[in-house]
């Protein structure tokens, strides 16, 4: 009994309960949701949001935002694709370059936030706009159109596809490699948060940067590191998009930064920082992915799509809050 209550008191318990409620709900109302194939599709969809959301969640626990996390996925893919297309070099070279580029953007975000004292919301909003503009402007300049060119024939494409965008099919179920990566990243993030010194620092810089600094936590390095983690994961999803779809639309990716934040908050992360955990964020992404696809599986009127989405989200958050309150009231 005590053990179950302890379990219930964990921050992700509420999110998990909400996920189960919504899952059962869709099982009940949407016949075509009741298949392994559908579940795999939901998992895939959740993983493409969830990978970056894990990073965004860490960053939010650390007390900062990153609004550039959505477009950077496309920037990452474009850098890789266009560099290799223009110079005809191996895709691995482009991927490495793109990684460097993304880490540099993350570093710049963090450095500007820490150095100027401007809130991260504004700094990364700036980066968001700049990247969005540059994606379009540079792509147009390089390829002459607003989408990147087909790079599937360039050396290294196939091996990279195996890493970032392969899938295995077993019967009706198609498991995308991104799902595995997602679980891995969430696991590493959870491990870091709970069990390592850096995790301790992340909670501290988000909970009270002043106190953290006073006891000698390297606040600046921790926060810059978090920004770089987010842009690393953004790069990762960018690679997936590139190697799955070959070409990228330069205008895409906008709006996803919001989904990451939603996933994190639905998963119990505090917007003001200092509270949350990785599995909660992963479950948050799963709730979002499941809800948005579940509505389609249920075949509800698409004109009302957003309305359903809103109601389901509120429901998820309500269940989450309720369960957590329940457990706080009873555990010990």
């Amino acid at each position: 009994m005590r053990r179950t209550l302890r379990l219930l008191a964990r921050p992700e318990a509420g999110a998990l309960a909400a996920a189960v409620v919504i899952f059962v709900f869709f099982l009940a109302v949407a016949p075509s949701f009741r298949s392994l194939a559908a579940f795999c599709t939901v998992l895939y969809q959740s993983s493409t949001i969830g990978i970056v959301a894990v990073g965004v969640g860490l960053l939010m626990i650390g007390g900062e935002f990153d609004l550039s996390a959505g477009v950077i996925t496309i920037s990452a893919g474009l850098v890789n694709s266009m560099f290799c297309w223009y110079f005809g070099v191996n895709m691995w070279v482009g991927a490495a370059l793109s990684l460097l580029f993304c880490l540099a953007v993350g570093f710049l975000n963090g450095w500007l936030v820490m150095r100027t004292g401007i809130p991260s919301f504004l700094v990364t909003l700036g980066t968001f706009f700049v990247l969005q503009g540059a994606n379009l402007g540079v792509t147009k300049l390089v390829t002459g159109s607003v989408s990147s060119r087909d790079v599937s024939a360039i050396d290294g494409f196939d091996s990279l596809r195996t890493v970032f965008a392969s899938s295995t099919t077993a019967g009706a179920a198609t498991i995308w490699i991104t799902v595995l990566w997602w679980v891995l990243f969430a696991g590493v993030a959870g491990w870091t948060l709970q069990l390592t010194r850096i995790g301790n620092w992340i909670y501290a810089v988000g909970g009270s940067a002043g106190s953290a600094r006073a006891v000698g936590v390297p606040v600046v390095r921790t926060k810059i590191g978090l920004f770089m983690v987010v842009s690393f994961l953004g790069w990762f999803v960018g690679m997936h998009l590139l190697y799955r779809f070959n070409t990228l639309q330069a205008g895409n990716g906008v709006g996803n930064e919001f989904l990451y934040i939603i996933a994190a908050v639905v998963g119990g992360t505090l917007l003001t920082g200092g509270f949350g955990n990785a599995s909660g964020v992963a479950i948050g992404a799963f709730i979002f992915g499941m809800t948005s696809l579940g509505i389609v599986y249920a075949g509800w009127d698409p004109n009302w799509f957003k309305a359903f989405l809103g109601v389901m989200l509120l429901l998820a958050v309500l269940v989450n809050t309720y369960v957590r309150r329940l457990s706080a009231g009873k555990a010990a």
Partner: protein
Amino acid sequence: MSDPLVQLTGVGKSYGPIRALYDVDLRVGAGEVTCVLGDNGAGKSTLIKVISGLHPHTSGSLRVDGAERRFSSPREALDLGIATVYQDLAVVPLMEVWRNFFLGSELVAGRFPLARMRIREMRRIADQELRKMGIVVADIDQPIGTLSGGQRQCVAIARAVYFGARVLILDEPTAALGVKQSGVVLRYIAAARDAGLGVVFITHNPQHAYLVGDHFVILKRGAAVLDAARGRVTLDELTTQMAGGDELAELSRELGRPA
């Protein structure tokens, strides 16, 4: 008396337009307790924030082990063995008690990418150190924000004492504490002194100060108005100096009740 561990000469500090410290001298010797006393807003906290690296001083010089320093972060001070209990920056409310206790000085096992914290050990030590101060928390995993004011203060003190290597700075540590806990803290201070640490002790309680202090500095509006060794000043003088009159006795008379 040995060479001073920390020596301040003519230190001043301004917060933008507001000048909080003028030209203060202070020495912290090994095995000595230096008490800093003064009215509210006199600049005591500001003084120790300079020593602990939280705010750099704007004029004067700060020497540690004879070498001129200007800390840009508390980490640098900590690395020189200067541990501090702050008046208002003590803890991160949402974090567990044990995490707060070890924050910034976590015990780890293993090498970098796989280094993990020795959590069981950390919880045990945190619990044990708090018990030593007479604080028994229901659950060492509870967020520190749910502890009472005094309990929180005890965590900060226990931490500083545990990690204090050479210099221990305490800003009104006993303010929120009960009689018993205050006694424990005073004993800690005495023990630290006897172990050869230099201690800076800020308090509003002249009795407490006189019990352990070797050296007394009184600040008034940011400037030092008294700087005397224990032998040169009595408790009564100290109290008088602090309050500008023997307040308590006078008050007791004034309120007209038998004590």
